[in-house]
């Protein structure tokens, strides 16, 4: 038994050392435009979902069938989120250049409930392109936004009509303006 424990201790140290060496000698591919193995991707995906489910508080959601709520949320979404997350019926090219790739919410509906969406928007997601919005929205705005995102793939046509055309472009966008780049 004693030699087993000795072996265990040595094995643990060697394993940690190997992992450390692998990381610190720059052997990890860090390019955002090259997807890692599907195994890695789904592991990260599972870890993120599990963490959100575990940590997000459960909040009372707004009455999300209220169309005013959806329209208000939709306007916020088109202004602040669509640049990376895509619009209903239109994927974002910019969102695809991140790793992890930005979820195209209109095409792949979210698995989170409204309270979890609010929590993600507020605190962001570490080690991804999702920044923490913090106090930039009121609780009501967060609620509207979450209701809209929850239903983005099945919006009633008149809600879609009400949020289009989108308001003028946001003041400052992180993405390079492609029309300018082409000049």
């Amino acid at each position, binding site marked *: *038994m004693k*030699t*087993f*424990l*000795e*072996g*265990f201790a*040595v*094995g*643990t140290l*060697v*394993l940690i050392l190997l992992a*450390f060496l692998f*990381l*610190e*000698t*720059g*052997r*990890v*591919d*860090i*390019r*955002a*435009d*090259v997807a*890692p193995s599907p195994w890695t991707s789904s*592991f990260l995906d*599972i*870890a*993120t*979902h*599990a*963490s*959100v*489910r*575990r*940590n997000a508080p459960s909040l009372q959601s707004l009455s999300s069938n209220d169309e005013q709520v959806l329209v208000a949320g939709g306007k916020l979404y088109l202004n602040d989120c669509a640049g990376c997350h895509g619009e209903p019926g239109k994927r974002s*090219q*910019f969102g695809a*250049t*991140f*790793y*992890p790739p930005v979820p195209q919410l209109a095409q792949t509906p979210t698995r989170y409930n409204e309270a979890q969406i609010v929590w*993600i928007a507020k*605190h*962001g*997601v*570490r*080690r*991804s*392109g*999702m*920044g*923490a919005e913090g106090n930039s929205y009121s609780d009501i705005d967060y609620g509207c936004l979450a209701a809209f995102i929850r239903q983005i793939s099945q919006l009633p046509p008149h809600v879609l009509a009400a949020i289009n055309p989108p308001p003028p472009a946001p003041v400052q*966008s992180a993405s*390079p*303006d*492609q029309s*300018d*780049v082409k000049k």
Partner: protein
Amino acid sequence: MKNFTAGFVAPFILLPLVVLVYFALGMADTRCDVKPTAWESAVMKPAVRSAVKRKAANLSAPGTATEDSIIAGGKLYVMGCMGCHGEPGKPFAEDHANYPPAPQLPHVGTQYSEPEIYWIIKHGIRMTAMSAYGPFYKEDQLWSLAAFIRRVDTLTPVEIQSIQPQKH
């Protein structure tokens, strides 16, 4: 000896399993606005640095950057990078929205060489908010951006003036 070998092998199975379970149960915090542990940052930051140095080792800049191309890079910076990485000539404001935070380049500068900066802009950095800009910029634009960012913490007031967008 047989016991020692069994003991040696056991953690190679057990530790990855423990790590998998830890993450699959959602024990890892996802919030950007909560600081991760010091050891996590201490391991991850040098890992990114050495990966950039290793992968970009064979690249070299097409030539010494001219003042014109540095200014052209500065204009691209103002349009595409400044929103997260900070505006030259303005007071320091840490990025609290993202984790890892976007480095405030005009204040902290960069330790990377021009080819390394070029490589980072082109390919992005996985698991950060730095996306790949290869699809959006031409090669010469990427290089002039890199030349500008290399010098972004030592700009003269005249240079800062000349990268401002033209007022119509």
